[in-house]
């Protein structure tokens, strides 16, 4: 069957089988390899993308289920080729990544958190990120990066 999914604002058409996972459509059909596949059963969070603005595990959805809907991947996060998204910049500054495999999932999870809750406590950040596994950093840098972006977005903090 042939389906079309909007990915990062661009329509993407491809021929798939019903069993094709959304993660594989993103990587192989759209060629966007920023979405990483870790465990492929919903535990690690590396493949997290946003579907119509809400985080989902792309390995736990069939591509056909995203037909006609809008997907955001890490490639669509930065405003342009030259600039980084504030979260990406904060991850860089706080050493919130080492190997980087888990980073796209963390970024999309954190972006959704800050849109829903612009001023989260550290506990809320940790809870929101609990579904994403990082084996390098010990999470401190990641949590600090997200809190930093939240603080920068608050008008009462310079």
């Amino acid at each position, binding site marked *: 069957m042939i389906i079309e999914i909007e990915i990062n604002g661009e329509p993407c058409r491809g021929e798939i*089988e*019903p*069993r094709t*996972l959304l993660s*594989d459509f993103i990587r192989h059909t759209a060629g966007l390899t920023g979405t990483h596949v870790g465990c*492929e*059963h*919903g535990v690690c*969070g590396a493949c*997290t993308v946003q*579907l119509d603005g*809400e*985080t*989902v*595990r792309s*390995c*736990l*959805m*069939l591509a*056909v*289920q995203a037909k006609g809907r809008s997907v955001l991947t890490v490639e669509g996060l930065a405003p342009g080729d030259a600039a980084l998204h504030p979260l990406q910049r904060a991850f860089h500054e706080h050493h919130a990544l080492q190997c980087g495999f888990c980073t796209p999932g963390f970024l999309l*999870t954190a972006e*959704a*958190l800050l849109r829903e809750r612009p001023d989260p406590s550290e506990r809320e950040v*940790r*809870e*929101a990120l*609990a*579904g994403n596994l990082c084996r390098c950093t010990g999470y401190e840098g990641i949590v600090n990066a997200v809190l930093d972006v939240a603080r920068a977005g608050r008008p009462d903090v310079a």
Partner: protein
Amino acid sequence: MKPAPFGYVAPSTIAAALGALGEDAKPLAGGQSLVPLLNFRLARPETLVDLNGIAELAYLRRSDGTLRIGALTRQVTIERSAVVAEGWPLLAQAVRHVAHPAIRNRGTVGGSVAHADPAAELPVALTALDARFHVRSAARGTRTIAAADLFLAPLMTALEPDELLVEIEVPPPPAGARSAFVEHARTHGDFAVAGAAVVRAGREHAAVALLGAGPTPVRAPDAEHALRHGASAAEAAAIAGAGLDDDYRRALTTELVRRALEEAQAG
């Protein structure tokens, strides 16, 4: 791994879905439990009946004091619902323990119930709330099942292969009811080892449902009876845990029930 090949249908009405269900067909709701099973090839249905396009299965409403939850209602909807928070806070308390936000965005209430994982939170909360489950088939129409009769064994319910869970009906809790949901998991969002859902209203009403105390959600009728006759949280908790053979599980369950009862009493 990748799923084995399957046929795929995406009906837009309940009637069309019922027509497609049967021995070798499996309904797909949020997919947060079924897709991992497909990826591991532990489930190899001939046909997947995708319910996600059935608008008449996705609703949450209060009518005549009763909460009616369409089977396709997402877990996140329960989490954010003002109606649930006000009238059935136990469901909001329980759903926050269901995995992680990205899972709750897709996962459905009906899916949690029909999958019947013994470590799932919503079936335990619904058991404490005396929920009733409406299931429908093309051949036999609608029937209503109580929680005690629905959950038979781990991952097994009384649903026949051609039946679809369509609605969960939650009766109004007694006046002044207070509730709590407490569980122990190794990390937040992981499968719970044990847990307890409790509802108290004055002296007369006490519901205690346990997670991890058996192959299905179970009520603790002896502990409920003791509570109605003035037992303290600690005394009732000891009774609730007493039947468990495993030392660790008994100690953990007893402690969790005590905490849940005290939290509910503190309101």
